[in-house]
């Protein structure tokens, strides 16, 4: 990809990313604690509870039909015990990035809530695919899917200024929208997302998924997780879940289906499951309930 964007523009992008909110300290601590075998449910719950808004969202997500708990959990420590450390970590990340992903992203013609819906669909799809290809880290697929498009938040204003040029470039040169971003702006949303993930000190594997989610074969680490998220993203786009002005101007990288050993029937089934599961996730846009502890 050639970079025709000006150095000043790249400088502005770096500044924009610097100005984005940091990952809340609570999430950073929860991430660290859930990796530590010596941690216990009580102490993790206690840390989450220090942020009331996050605590409310975590409980709400835990109680959504998506997790199919046999009964309602009313305390965080209960949720940690029943769902496990990894899932709780994911819920904390989801709860803390909600505000950012729920924004209106006018550059892409995404109304408020649309990017969140798209991210959630991709997260659900990635988790389903990861399970099917038997990745050992199914829960990581959820977070990777959720954060894959975070870069759109950062390059929103740049795209907004030059949306027409980018779209024209995609159509004229017959290249995917993400490559047209690169051609017109000198950077793209995947690359910007990688920078945000680095700023947040997310694990390198996650940075790599975000950075290469439109071209898994270019990733130096060739992690299967990148193909998993790539397919989940393309399917969510195809189905129109939270799509904007960039529409379906994207491509499924050749060889992705073969890499994952997927066939047409698998794709249809997956689409159906994503739709069903989307209906079972709670609507975080609603006023969160008040929770204690």
């Amino acid at each position, binding site marked *: 990809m050639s970079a025709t964007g000006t150095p000043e523009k790249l400088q502005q992008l770096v500044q924009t990313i610097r100005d984005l909110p940091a990952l809340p300290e609570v999430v950073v601590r929860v991430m660290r604690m859930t990796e530590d075998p010596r941690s216990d449910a009580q102490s993790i719950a206690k840390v989450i509870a220090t942020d009331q808004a996050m605590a409310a969202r975590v409980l709400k997500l835990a109680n959504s039909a998506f997790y199919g708990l046999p009964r309602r959990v009313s305390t965080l420590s209960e949720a940690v015990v029943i769902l496990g450390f990894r899932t709780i970590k994911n819920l904390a990340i989801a709860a803390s990035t909600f505000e950012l992903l729920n924004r209106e992203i006018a550059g*892409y013609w995404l109304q408020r809530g649309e990017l969140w819906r798209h991210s959630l669909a991709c997260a659900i799809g990635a988790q389903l695919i990861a399970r099917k290809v038997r990745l050992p880290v199914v829960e990581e697929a959820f977070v990777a899917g959720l954060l894959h498009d975070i870069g759109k938040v950062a390059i929103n204003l740049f795209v907004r200024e030059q949306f027409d040029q980018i779209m024209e470039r995609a159509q004229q040169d017959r290249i995917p929208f993400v490559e047209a971003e690169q051609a017109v702006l000198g950077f793209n949303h995947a690359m910007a997302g990688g920078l945000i993930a680095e700023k947040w000190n997310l694990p390198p594997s996650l940075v790599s998924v975000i950075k290469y989610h439109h071209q898994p074969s270019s990733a130096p680490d060739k992690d299967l997780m990148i193909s998993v998220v790539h397919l989940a993203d393309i399917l969510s786009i195809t189905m129109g879940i939270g799509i904007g002005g960039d529409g379906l101007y994207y491509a499924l990288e050749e060889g992705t289906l073969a890499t994952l050993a997927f066939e047409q029937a698998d794709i249809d089934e997956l689409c159906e499951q994503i739709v069903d599961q989307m209906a079972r996730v709670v609507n975080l846009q609603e006023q969160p309930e008040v929770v204690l502890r």
Partner: protein
Amino acid sequence: MGVNLTVGMGEIQVVRGAGNVLTALGLGSCVGVCLYDPLTRVAGMVHVVLPKSQASKTGELPGKFADTAIPAIVQRMVEQGASVSRLKAAIAGGAQLFQFGVSSSLDVGARNAEAVIIALREAGIPLQAKDVGGSAGRTLRLISDNGLIVVRTIGGAERELAVLGNILASSGVAA
């Protein structure tokens, strides 16, 4: 008082009388099907996700699949007083990933549009207008007063696709 309803993926919405608006947001490969009975002003919309149901899983959300969606919405509309012989249809959606030289195996948009057209034909409902294919996302709106169908390309212009309640213009089938 009219209602303004959003038709989510796999959902069917049916309203009766003037003053109602049905909307399907963000149609990609999905196909939004609008049906209208001009006499009773019974209007219906279904947001079809996939072409064909699996025998094992019918029933839960018939609107998800083209082959079960059309019979299901027709039945709902008849229950509201519509007559099958008066129903007219317009469809939009069925977009596909942009073709970049390599043939795509994800042709669900084209298969959806084809399956919907076949299902409408089997139900004997004339298709008055369609806006399918391409790579842009669409928003589809049906106004119950006169069966006006409006399609907006996300990030682009809005245009009138058809007026299903216009008796005079009902002879030309655009299929």
